[in-house]
């Protein structure tokens, strides 16, 4: 028997209170273990709303979010603990997602501490390993986020998200705040984590070239609905929906 998808949305809709139109409507998506899925679309398409649902940070008005085949129940503390251990996230802005008053070592150790996996002492070697893996120097543990550039901060965020060896990494526009040379380096890092550790990746992005570099599957969202989904090579290589074609045509290209 094949294992159930690690994350699954079944006919999910979410209405925000006081809003006439749903933020997302009738969305069904599956994330297989070891696979990678991109959620693509423009502002207001519902990408981040879906990511929040996948993170268990909100509950859908209709439909279900399932983790390892079981419906996600934010009040079930045991399940949520297993869930948090397995699913970690990285956000867009490395300037606002790291606590400026804490040292990088404490920031990266945070998941280990809050999941009750480690004490400060037992966390230290794991933190060192996580920092090394993302290409940061060992002395980073004693330094503060402001001492690092945007790209290095995003590496800190990735170290924090991967320190507890999660199975799934959810990333919300992980490279869009970065310069192009740094962007390539962070894309390479995520690709390496995928390849070497079998990390499952779900990524929200409006940047189609980053999506094409990292994700095997793509779902295109417009106005809260999935208008097209499938293998990235097919969706972006031979788009069936006019909205996907419009997105692709709008990408500025270098002159040849």
């Amino acid at each position, binding site marked *: 028997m094949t294992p159930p998808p690690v994350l699954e949305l079944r006919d999910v809709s979410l209405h925000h209170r006081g809003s006439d139109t749903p933020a997302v409507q009738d969305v069904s998506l599956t994330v297989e273990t070891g696979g990678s899925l991109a959620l693509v679309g*423009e*502002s207001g398409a519902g990408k981040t709303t879906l990511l929040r649902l996948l993170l268990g940070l909100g509950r859908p008005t209709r439909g279900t979010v399932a983790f390892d085949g079981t419906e996600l129940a934010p009040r079930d503390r045991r399940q949520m603990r297993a869930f948090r251990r397995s699913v970690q996230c990285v956000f867009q802005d490395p300037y606002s997602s790291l606590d400026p008053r804490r040292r990088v070592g404490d920031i990266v150790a945070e998941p280990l501490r809050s999941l009750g996996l480690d004490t400060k002492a037992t966390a230290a070697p794991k933190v060192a390993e996580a920092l090394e893996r993302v290409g940061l120097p060992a002395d980073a543990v004693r330094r503060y986020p402001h001492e690092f*550039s*945007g790209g290095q901060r995003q590496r800190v965020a990735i170290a924090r998200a991967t320190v507890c060896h999660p199975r799934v990494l959810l990333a919300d526009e992980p490279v869009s705040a970065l*310069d*192009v*040379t*740094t*962007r*390539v380096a962070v*894309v390479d890092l995520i690709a390496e984590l995928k390849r070497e550790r079998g990390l499952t990746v779900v990524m929200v992005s*409006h940047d*189609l*070239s*980053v999506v*094409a*570099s990292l994700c095997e599957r793509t779902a295109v969202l417009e106005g809260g609905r999935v208008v097209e989904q499938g293998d*990235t*090579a097919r969706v*972006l*290589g*031979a788009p069936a929906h006019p909205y996907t074609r*419009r*997105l*692709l*045509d*709008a*990408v*500025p*290209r*270098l*002159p040849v």
Partner: protein
Amino acid sequence: MTLLDLSGLTLRTTDGTTLVDDLSLTLAPGERLGLIGESGSGKSLTALAVLGLLPEGITATGSVELAGTQIVGAREEQLTRVRGRDAAVVFQEPLTALDPLMRAGRQLAEPLRRRHGLRGPALKRAVLDALERVRLAEPDRIARSFPHEISGGQRQRVALAMALACEPKLLIADEPTTALDVSVQAEMLDLIDTLVRERDMAVVFVSHDLAVVARIADRAVVMRQGRAVEEGTVLGLVRSPAHAYTRALVGSARRLESALNLGDPR
């Protein structure tokens, strides 16, 4: 004839850190120049220095001559005369350029009133014309809206309409499409391209994105850590970059873009 002449421009903080180092460049009327660089390259500060808009604590030495006026060390009255008439600017984030407590129409009316001395119905007509010129559908509704009531793309169009209101000889655009969605960005670039072409306006287009700069500019200066490392036509820079840093920039951009060539088997 030069419209803009930067010569030995150096920008320093009060504690002596050099942010822009000995930058020289010239721009002829109607010419379109790209300033390319990553964060911390000094490209945005250079753009601000052209209008004498440097933040407090940063001092300029050297020379910035804009349509015959020396900007470095100029008094505020001189700068006020230059701004809008000789050069105007569109910033990355239209929310910071627009007053959140003022309806879009009133904000746009201000430069039109000052520059052209328009009043009453004529002013109202000019506001609607200006909004139509930046291809905003429903100019009436936009004019009555507060900035938070319209989309990011619409706000950036209003900001562009304000910059164009005084018919400047030079438009400075500082990452004007970075905060926009990709399809809105494409429309905005088209719009800037058409409007400046129609008016023979010169452009300094600041961006980290080579492909975006290529849409607007003919020539570009690549900046890194406050210095110009390479200058040339945009085509030349992209096709045969000479400086190692330009090569790295072009290489990164090409690599990301090549991921989109999904027709080819990889």
